């Protein structure tokens, strides 16, 4: 049985923890609103990009001279996994669920006899994967001091990946991130970015039977568009991730605050009971002492 003083101390410490988790929840809620807006504002660009790409890609279907970024280089031996996670923890299962998806994919690919390389964007993903795949991680990109993610950040990552592709360091690149559905639901997603995946639902725009005129040629436009598409997809993934991270942290901290509240209630009950027991005991001692005289 802990003493009254111990109980008082424990109640005080749980209360302090509750205050911290409450504050973190509120900060996450404020940040979430901004991150969600950013993620939603970025969607039109990515969607238009996909539909333009689908329009142009149709012309190249099955042609041997299709750009390598679209059709791939014909191999799938070396797989690059681009794992985007957060820089900080304490956000529920956010980081671990992305890492788990990446780990499962990596294990499957290794089982198929392929070479796996991992590029981590965000420190937490690297921490989670380092234990098992330390030799596979080729680079870790951190955005630690970055307040607001801009397109330039994503472009930097995109250019790095493209340079590696051109150097023949890998054949297929897959992007791992968490798609933001709502505050309570974020879906870890794997998306192939090289060769470009053309979403089936981005139907070809109806041009009313008229031929699409391109200037310069379709090849040149596509050659310009495809690298840009890589950066765009990464940018979108980073923004979705930012929103997911805050959403996940918000619900995790909400849970923690509630747990702390329950704990305080339980401890307070115990504290009051033992205090009462002590008083009763003292009274009995006094009364029985008085009777004995």
């Amino acid at each position, binding site marked *: 049985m802990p003493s009254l003083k111990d109980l008082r101390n424990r109640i005080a410490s749980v209360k302090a923890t509750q205050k911290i988790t409450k504050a973190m929840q509120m900060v996450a809620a404020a940040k979430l609103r901004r991150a969600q807006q*950013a993620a939603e*504002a*970025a969607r*039109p*660009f990515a969607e*238009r*990009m996909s539909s*333009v790409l689908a*329009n*142009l890609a149709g012309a190249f279907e099955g042609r041997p001279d299709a750009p390598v970024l679209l059709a791939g280089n014909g191999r799938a031996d070396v797989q690059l996994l681009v794992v985007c996670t957060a820089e900080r923890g304490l956000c529920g299962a956010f980081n671990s669920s992305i890492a788990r998806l990446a780990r499962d994919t990596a294990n499957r690919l290794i089982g198929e006899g392929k070479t796996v390389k991992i590029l981590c964007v965000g420190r937490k993903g690297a921490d989670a994967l380092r234990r098992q795949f330390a030799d596979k991680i080729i680079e870790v990109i951190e955005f630690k001091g970055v307040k607001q993610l*801009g*397109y330039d950040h*994503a*472009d930097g990552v995109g250019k790095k990946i493209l340079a590696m592709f051109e150097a023949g360091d890998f054949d297929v690149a897959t992007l791992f991130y968490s798609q933001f559905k709502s505050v309570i639901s974020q879906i870890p997603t794997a998306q192939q970015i090289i060769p470009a995946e053309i979403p089936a639902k981005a139907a070809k*725009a*109806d*041009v*009313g039977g*008229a*031929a*699409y*005129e*391109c*200037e*310069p040629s379709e090849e*040149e*436009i596509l050659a*310009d*568009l495809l690298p*840009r598409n890589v950066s*765009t997809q990464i*940018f979108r993934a980073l923004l979705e991730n930012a929103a997911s991270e805050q959403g996940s942290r918000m619900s995790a901290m909400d849970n923690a605050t509630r747990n702390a509240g329950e704990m305080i209630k339980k401890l307070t009950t115990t504290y009051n009971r033992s205090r009462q027991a002590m008083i009763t005991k003292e009274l009995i001692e006094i009364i029985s002492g008085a009777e004995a005289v």
Partner: protein
Amino acid sequence: MAEAFKFELVSPARLVLSEDVAQVMVPGAEGDFTMLKGHAPFMTTVRPGVLEATGVSGKVSKIFVRGGFADAGPAGLTILAEQAIPVEELKADVIAKEIKDAEEDLADAKSDEAKRVAQQKLDQLKAVFAAAPSH
């Protein structure tokens, strides 16, 4: 007055502009062109430069765009730009930074083709810089 059509300017971060306009002057890679309603389906890349959208009321908005595409269809004109800044907000130091980046790109360029592209981009940026109102 020309008939209005839908014009959308999208940058990765946000939808910059989405409104009905009478005409749009676009700095295309192969030369400037003006879009009116009912233009044939047409797609082109955009060079760094200033785009001019004339609203139905005759109000002209000038926007600096860099790197992207113009996609004209029956539904209207969509421009995907890597960067889009209204000219009023465009500061001389922003263009100066762009020019510096372009110069670095030129220095980094290895093949002749890459050099030509980088040089072209630099020239275009310098032209914008010369025309910028705020310096």
